[in-house]
């Protein structure tokens, strides 16, 4: 009986790991690129970040607040993680839970970054955090950190 329970527990753990491991999509740049050129009526706020990037982590509450304030205003926030290494999915899941992130998180995994940085924006040196705000009419690029007021003001230009 105990053995059966152990097996059952084991199966539950394995299954939930598999379920969680599929939570964040992992894109090559080619797969990711269409997200920079959506032609609908939304405003997109795309933030390039990583769990180990201290200034990125510091501005996560800013993006959380922006999400809460504008989630019903046709604003879509996409947090593009540039994390890499072991246990990627579970590390990002832990981070998402700890920091209570509700915005969409995706993982951009394309190590030949020289081939795609200019395609994100020609002014980007490659440092993070970096944020892009765009709609079908305009794009603005920011290689910098934000506090909430600054970010909200920039977003308002698009609303």
């Amino acid at each position, binding site marked *: 009986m105990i053995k059966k329970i152990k097996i059952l527990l084991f199966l539950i753990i394995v299954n939930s790991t598999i379920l969680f491991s599929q939570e964040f999509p992992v894109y090559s740049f080619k797969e990711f690129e269409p997200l920079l050129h959506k032609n609908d009526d939304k405003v997109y706020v795309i933030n390039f970040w990583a769990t180990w990037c201290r*200034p990125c982590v510091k501005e996560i509450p800013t993006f959380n607040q922006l999400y809460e304030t504008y989630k019903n205003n046709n604003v879509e926030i996409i947090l593009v993680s540039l994390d890499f290494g072991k246990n990627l999915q579970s590390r990002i899941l832990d981070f998402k839970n700890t920091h209570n992130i509700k915005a969409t998180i995706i993982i951009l995994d394309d190590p030949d970054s*020289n081939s795609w940085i200019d395609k994100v924006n020609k002014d980007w*040196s*490659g*440092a993070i955090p970096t944020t892009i705000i765009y709609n079908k009419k305009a794009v603005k690029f920011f290689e910098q950190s934000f506090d909430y007021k600054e970010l909200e003001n920039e977003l308002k230009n698009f609303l």
Partner: protein
Amino acid sequence: MKKTLISIVLILVIVGSAFAQGYKVGDLAENFKLKSTKGEFVSLFEYDKATKGAIVIFTCNHCPYAKAYEDRIIDLDQKFREKGYPVIAINPNDPALAPEDSFEKMIERSNEKGFPFPYLLDETQEVYKMYGATRTPHVYLLNRVDNQFNVSYIGTIDDNYKDPSLVTKKYLENAVNALLKGKLPDPNFTKAIGCSIKD
């Protein structure tokens, strides 16, 4: 009078922003003299191994990209030091903002990995600004002609930070090899994702 003042201010702003851009390929690098983890000061112009030039790399302890490239930077120094292009590594981060990049931690890391190259601290953060480095790692390959150091390549080490075995383009190595053959590096400028410099 007011107009003149405004023009002067404008000119200053324009000139200032031009300097803030840092070096471009073709510029002459100025000297620096910074403290190394071995306790001595290293100066570019007086560095005896830099007979043909130098591979100046802004890097640090804490950044995962910098860590991923540590072994490759050691290899580059071993490969090119004797040929006249030694590596000079500079940590540009403010330790108050990145505690793992303190001078003490730099000494620790340098000893752990047995860095064969000087690992310097840009304590006043003036050198990285002069170069225009924005991230770690960020490479400036310098070519020495007489006593001048010409910026010949700016950018990344290769095209795969994650896995050295999957590298297909060794940008930096190809650039040094081009200089060794008396040619100009092509490409002479590349980009890479990296950790922003903490200032």
